């Protein structure tokens, strides 16, 4: 396997941040549309919510929550770097960001109905 200069934690963090951001940008209009059913067609929304409590969908939702948490925690690391000059401990912060994101995802999954 050819070595690449992209093989380091802060690069993977960038990749995760970009991918999670794009996924969220796609998810949000869908999310808002589904939510609008609460106003226009409550019965349809309830049906959707029943469907979304199946394990597969719950797992996908959890994935989305992990993406959200990853984008948030990664973003906080960046804000710290840019505005507070927190340049050290980057690898540790990346690790923390991943850990916290997975934890939040787990908390979500465990509380899912």
């Amino acid at each position, binding site marked *: 396997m*050819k070595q*690449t*200069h992209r093989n*380091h934690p*802060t690069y993977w963090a*960038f990749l995760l941040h970009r991918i999670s951001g794009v996924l969220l940008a796609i998810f949000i209009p869908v999310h808002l549309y589904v939510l609008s059913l609460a106003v226009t067609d409550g019965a349809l929304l309830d049906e959707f919510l029943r469907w979304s409590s199946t394990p597969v969908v719950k797992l996908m939702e959890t994935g989305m929550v992990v993406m959200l948490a990853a984008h948030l925690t990664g973003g906080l690391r*960046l804000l710290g770097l*840019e505005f507070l*000059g927190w340049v050290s401990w*980057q690898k540790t912060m990346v690790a923390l960001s991943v850990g916290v994101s997975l934890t939040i995802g787990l908390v979500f999954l465990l509380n899912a109905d």
Partner: protein
Amino acid sequence: MTEDMLQVSVWKGDAKGAFATYQVRRQENQTVLDLVTHIQRYLDPSLSYRFACRVGVCGSCAMTVNGKARWTCRSHVSNVVEDGRIEIRPLESLPVVKDLVVDMTDFFDKWAKAKGSFEPTCSRNDEIAAVSPSDKKRRLADAGIECIGCGVCYSTCDVVRWKPDYLGPAAMNRAWTLVNDVRDGGNDERLRAVAGDDGCLSCHSQQGCVERCPQKLNPTMAIAGLKRETIKAALKGKL
């Protein structure tokens, strides 16, 4: 002792060239520059490459070795070899002149574009500026002034790859050292030069530059500093 032969692929030609592969005997103490030199002297006299000091102070021998930009004179073969193979390409994001030689014009043009030159505020008739070594701004400048313009960070940076007009880590690292030089009077122009999408604001803090800089500098930190200063300037209406 069994003969240990390395398979060394070097780029030949310009951007539309190709790799040429040579067998070079492996030695105990051998740098990648040694390999290139051996190939040019004994195997392929037409091979073009740059070097000068051979001891890691000039930065001329920077090339892409097995995917990573590095100083070939300071790259021990044992640290870079993969399965007995070494691939040597010219630095990325710069036009290839021939073989392993790139045109550094863009790199240095961007240095100038980022206003990486000192703007004096005093004359020879004034007192020498007294800047204590422990002064906060001086320490920030000191952290970045050892840049020798080798191009490794520039060649590594993905934003440089994706945005042809992006100033790049070295140019902005230099600009930051001058922003922190209390004797300098050109900061209004300089901040204007490094703001915007072609400047510091496009840095995604991937920190490949930090990983690869042979002088252990931190352009990401410098660029973050520029971000703060340009935003301050924007809020003050100075941009």
